[in-house]
């Protein structure tokens, strides 16, 4: 009786090789047959050279109300958004990066008790409940990028101490809430008010009077940004995640996130400039073009500094991300985002030869001057090889990205032209 043919028999003997591999695998669960080419863990730290990866290298973790994000710090919480979430103009709340300064951060807010307090050098102090904010003021919405001052700190050479962010300490959301100016008008600023100070629910274990005890930031009242600020109770048309500042946070369009106080609870009019640690000592940048200096200059003690403020123009390639080999001749889309704290992105240019020659990309929908602007460009790698894709954005004020690095002791303001290596393989 022969149910299978000679040919099938031969074929099955020929399959022995592959079968053996399978069998060997089944025997050896728990021990790789050879080093896998994907799935190797990142190193646990980078340096002393620049971090070569787009994101920081921490493990992925789950935190309340969050998708798995990259861990920088567990206490106080600092989480970075993985690159692929930036393929759209708006960053999902559950993927939005997190950065707190003090470890006493709220995990419960009782809205029966919580009030936004407006006090200091004012005519009529206010205590506003969430329903007050929702019903007694007109609501406004604005798309705005929130970026940590230290985003991309791990790029600096020499490396500086601090949160070792890759590029993912940023996000864009549609913020809805009350105009700060409407609240200030309702409370009535007394004459002599020069700054307005903001404080949230976070507290630290350091002694009173130190930055480790309270986190407070201030804006000069003559800064035009005050008229653009929003006390936001909604983020992408959802309540704010607790880790992003529930119930309300300050939105300071175009400014770095250090001013965007989370779980905002005190708004204080000041009759003299704020000299608390977080204004006077921390978050200051050299008063030089691009805020750049050198370790040697800093050593002289003569570098004049100013409080960090608006974000410089930046742009990123999001896909392809370099993790996949591309066959030569295969047409594909390069896609990414751009933004600037100084105004609308007006142009994004792409180079396939490491920033020597440039082509203009097509910009996506305009969600406003302070939003991420998506861009894309059709691209066909003509031949096998390694391509250095570079991205450069220009904003409506004419600011453009430079190819020189930035260095300052705080690790702030990085906006060098980004590069991504893409491997293009033979197609036949």
């Amino acid at each position, binding site marked *: 009786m022969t149910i299978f043919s000679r040919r099938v028999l031969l074929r099955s003997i020929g*399959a022995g090789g592959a079968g053996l591999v399978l069998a060997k695998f089944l025997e050896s669960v728990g021990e790789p047959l050879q080093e896998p080419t994907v799935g190797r863990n990142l190193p646990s730290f980078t340096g002393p050279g620049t971090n070569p990866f787009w994101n920081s290298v921490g493990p992925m973790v789950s935190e309340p109300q969050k998708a798995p994000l990259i861990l920088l710090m567990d206490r106080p919480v600092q989480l970075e958004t993985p690159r692929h979430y930036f393929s759209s103009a708006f960053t999902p709340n559950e993927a939005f990066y997190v950065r707190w300064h003090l470890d006493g951060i709220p995990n419960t807010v009782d809205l029966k008790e919580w009030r936004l307090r407006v006090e200091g050098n004012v005519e009529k102090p206010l205590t506003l409940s969430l329903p007050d904010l929702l019903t007694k003021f007109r609501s406004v919405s604005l798309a705005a990028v929130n970026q940590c001052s230290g985003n991309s700190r791990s790029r600096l050479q020499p490396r500086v*101490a601090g949160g070792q962010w890759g590029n993912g300490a940023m996000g864009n959301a549609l913020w809805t809430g009350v105009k700060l100016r409407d609240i200030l008008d309702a409370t009535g600023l007394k004459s002599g008010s020069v700054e307005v100070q903001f404080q949230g629910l976070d507290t630290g274990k350091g002694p009173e009077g*130190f930055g480790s005890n309270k986190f407070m930031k201030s804006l000069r009242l003559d800064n035009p940004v005050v008229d653009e600020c929003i006390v936001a109770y909604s983020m992408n048309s959802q309540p704010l995640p607790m880790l992003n500042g529930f119930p309300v946070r300050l939105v300071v369009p175009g400014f770095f996130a250090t001013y965007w106080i989370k779980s905002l609870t005190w708004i204080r009019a000041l009759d003299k400039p704020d000299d608390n640690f977080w204004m006077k000592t921390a978050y200051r940048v050299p008063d030089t073009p691009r805020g750049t200096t050198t370790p040697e200059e800093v050593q002289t003690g003569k570098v004049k500094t100013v409080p960090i403020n608006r974000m410089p123009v930046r742009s990123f390639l999001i896909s392809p991300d370099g993790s996949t080999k591309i066959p030569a001749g295969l047409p594909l889309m390069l896609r990414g985002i751009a933004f600037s704290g100084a105004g609308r992105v007006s142009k994004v240019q792409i180079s396939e030869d490491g920033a020597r020659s440039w082509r203009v990309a097509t910009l996506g929908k305009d969600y406003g001057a302070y939003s991420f602007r998506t861009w894309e460009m059709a691209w066909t790698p003509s031949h096998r090889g390694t391509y250095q894709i570079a991205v450069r954005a220009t904003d409506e004020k004419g600011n453009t990205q430079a190819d020189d690095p930035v260095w300052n002791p705080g690790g702030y303001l990085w906006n060098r032209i980004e590069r991504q290596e893409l491997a293009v393989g033979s197609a036949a």
Partner: protein
Amino acid sequence: MRIPTIFVLILLVLSMLATVALYADFQSGYYAPVGASSLAQQTPPKLSLDADYEVGMYPIYPALFPSGDGVTEVKAYCNTCHSPRYITMQPPLPAAVWTAEVNKMVNSYGAAIPDDAKQKIIEYLQTHFTHETRKRS
């Protein structure tokens, strides 16, 4: 004629292997066991309808520290305001930077660290976390 089940099974297995062999002509594939991710899925929380908005505790992920003189002081004092993961997150830093960082914690942030403990912390960080001394893990 009735074909015994065992033959049917053998036939199935052999045809499977044959398929594998066919595919082996232009691709090769295998699975490699690697450490399973520790990202367990969470059950959805039970939500009350009052004015309390609660998200539960934030998790702590203890960082690994090389043993040695000063590790106790690091874990005790540096854990007051932030978890010591702040140290393991850093790139290797020059010895002078570690001295400056610890002094910053005491002078700028008001960390209450006795002088001898402070010295031990600086020495520990310089022994394990500079370009020359930091070990890849």
